[in-house]
């Protein structure tokens, strides 16, 4: 667990330091240009901004870990209160988007790898290339035009919490989640196709066939197991992308999420709120990374050997050189 903790500390310190270095202090933003030096010093002291950076950071972190993220420079609402309301929106939306991405991308990737060169393969490949080049908000706009304006199947914006009414939540979350998942689904499909095609040409697949294992077993237990690793890594990388995309989706679909909070705070240079939003984002991404790594380790244990272990077998390596 030491690695995620280190990463968490580096990421939060880095972003905290950027915030402190940015010069967006409450004196400048709240008091305005006509403030007296005494008033500025007074305000900086109140926010603890006259202390060394490391002291500030650890004080902030200590408070953050007990649930106190400070208060907004502007509204005086505790940051943790605003985040507490906004976070469930993003978490439920991201979970739905990930599910879409895995289902759509997985099916497309496996299908096109098995039927290489077929019509299906060509369609999947064309759709994936197109999705990789479309600005993310265009997907959202297209979905709104299709499902909300032309077919009138789903609402174009708004939100109902999952805990209040799961059915309504799904109605409101469906389009933004689909828009968010598009890029991830394309990435997973492409990666899975590539690695699965590679895995299917590996000797161990021939070996499995030579042992008389069924085609299905060879595909799922042998080829897919080894091919899933890179796709899972892509999925892990997609989590930040999905959260980043959520900023755009939240604006477009009028969702009251963390990103909206950060966006407003960004335009007002409301540092405590931005830092709180970053902290939560980093936390969510790290937790999902830990989950992905845990699955990856179970799936392909050999991938974790260091190159040094491999070099400890000079005899075996030398024997194989003659091949």
């Amino acid at each position: 667990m030491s690695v995620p903790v280190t990463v968490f500390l580096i990421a939060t310190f880095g972003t905290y330091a950027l915030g402190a270095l940015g010069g967006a202090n409450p004196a400048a933003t709240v008091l305005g240009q006509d403030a007296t030096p005494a008033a500025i010093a007074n305000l900086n002291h109140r926010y603890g901004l006259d202390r060394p950076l490391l002291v500030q950071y650890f004080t902030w972190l200590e408070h953050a870990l007990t649930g106190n993220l400070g208060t907004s420079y502007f509204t005086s609402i505790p940051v943790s209160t605003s985040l507490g309301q906004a976070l469930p929106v993003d978490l439920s939306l991201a979970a739905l988007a990930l599910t879409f991405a895995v289902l759509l991308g997985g099916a497309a990737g496996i299908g096109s790898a098995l039927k290489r060169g077929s019509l299906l393969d060509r369609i999947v490949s064309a759709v994936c290339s197109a999705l990789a080049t479309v600005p993310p908000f265009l997907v959202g706009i297209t979905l709104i035009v299709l499902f909300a304006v032309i077919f009138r199947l789903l609402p174009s914006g708004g939100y109902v919490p999952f805990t209040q009414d799961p059915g309504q939540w799904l109605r409101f979350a469906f389009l933004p989640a689909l828009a968010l998942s598009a890029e991830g689904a394309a990435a997973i499909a492409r990666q899975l196709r590539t690695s699965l095609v590679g895995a299917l040409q590996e000797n161990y697949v021939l070996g499995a066939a030579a042992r008389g294992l069924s085609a299905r077993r060879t595909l799922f237990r042998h080829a897919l197991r080894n091919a899933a690793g890179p796709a899972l890594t892509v999925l892990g990388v997609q989590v930040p992308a999905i959260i980043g995309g959520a900023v755009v989706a939240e604006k477009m679909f009028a969702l009251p999420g963390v990103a909206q909070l950060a966006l407003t705070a960004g335009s007002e240079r409301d540092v405590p709120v931005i830092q709180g939003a970053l902290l939560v984002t980093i936390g969510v991404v790290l937790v999902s990374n830990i989950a992905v790594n845990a699955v990856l380790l179970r799936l392909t244990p050999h991938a974790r050997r260091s190159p040094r272990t491999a070099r400890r077998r000079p005899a075996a390596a030398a024997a194989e050189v003659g091949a």
Partner: protein
Amino acid sequence: MSAERPGTLRRALRLTSARIALGLVVLIAVLAVFGGALAPHDPLAQDTSAVLQGPSWAHWLGTDYLGRDVLSRLMAGSGRSVVGALEAVGIGLVLGVLPGLASLWLGRVYEWVSLRIVDAFMTLPYVVFAVAVTGFFGNSLLAAMTAVGLLIAPLYFRVTRAAALGLTRTQYVEAAELYGASRHRILRRHLWSKILPTIAVTTAQALAAALLTVSSLAFLGLGVQPPLPTWGELLSSDLDYLSIQPWAPLFPGLLIMLVAGALNALADAIRDTGAAAAIVAEQSIETPVEVVDDAPRATVAAVSDPVLRVGGLRVTVHDGRAEAVHGVSFEVGRGEIVGLVGESGSGKTLTCRAITGLLAPGVARSAGSVELLGGDGSEPVDLTALDRAGWNAVRGPRVGVVFQDPASYLNPSIPVGRQLVEALRAHADLSRTAAKARALELFGSVGLRDPEAVFAQYPHELSGGMAQRVLIAIAISGDPELLIADEATSALDVLVQAEVLDLLRTLVRERGLALLLVTHDLGVVAELCDRVLVFEAGRIVEQGPASQVVAAAPEYTELIGAAS
């Protein structure tokens, strides 16, 4: 061998698409440099009498909310947009590639720290981080693109590191190190040629991603500095007037799509060229043989109690365009060891693959019969008429196969014991515990000294000899009547080779197996085989008792000796 051979048309198309992509990228580069000068109107000139107009002869793409010419703004904005994306990618390239390479050579402390910093950056989403940085430092294109660049760096770091790491793990670098080549020389000779294509692919993709991120940020109003035009600025002002000009975001949107698409196509083309080179290299190894229609010269010797009968077997390669095996016929009897010898490309391995139905795509049996004759309680099987399910019942219980480079024929992610258990349970109704007990017994019977320990090991943890014993254990687990060993001992050192050959001889004696042994080593033939079939250019040119053939045909000895 399993070379995927796209048709010439498809390859040409791929080339054409790469050319179009390259042309587009060059066009954008020209626009970026000269766009402002080439623009038909002044991109900043306002005309309040012609606000929000549709496309016309004077304004090809219409005008915006201040009556400015959209085409001119797009052209003039190219420079700033491209420079913004280049800036982000440049920051990423510099901060990513060198630390990524350094992480392999500067020792563990640096490696650990740099990986943690990269991990830390990877937790930050582009857009969220850009929002934060513009919040901290003020809203400017430079702040936004620096934020994006900082987050592109980890991508370069990882990709470079992975490519270099993959290279250091390959056997030829391990071998080069073993033979005392300096790391610097390995780096110079192999590393850059491997890493530069990866970096090129990543750069094309990163540029596309940076352009898309700029447009997302513009949608949110970040990095936009009116009145100076950029593609993002056009988008954000278009979006404010969406109700009047719903099609307006299409022009900058399409332009961004086109550039991003061209860059991605270029990335694919670079990658494909690498793959194509590999295919060409593979193809040059096999020498295509023209179809020659004559009867096999060697006559079929009568074998008592035959297990396998091959008659007039022909194998074509290159999707049937050339024939590599020209009608071979032979039999293998119970308890008999038959050697297939010949130089590389003489057709002996193709013959074995055809017998087991494991021919690569593009390679096929074009004529001839292959039969398992059965007897002793088992049914005769026509091996030329099997579907996949039929093969599954034959491979394992009737025919076992052992290959060269055994570890690669085992799934790297699964302990070898469980792979043996899987094979056992695929063919017999065994409980997990019964299968495990049987597996340990089999591991013992192939001479593995500590079956329990081997059971839990992964293929990469085994030596070559141990891996071959495991593969033999799996091959005989279904109690087959025929065992095919394709160069099964060629990659092993002399001592281990002798042990494995000894094991094969014991198995044949104890189980009454028929063994088909492919080799180019006449020493192996003389020591182990009862009978020898000599392959040359896709035909059996000589056959007989091992001692007789080896002694009476010195020209083959020379031939094969030269090949090995």
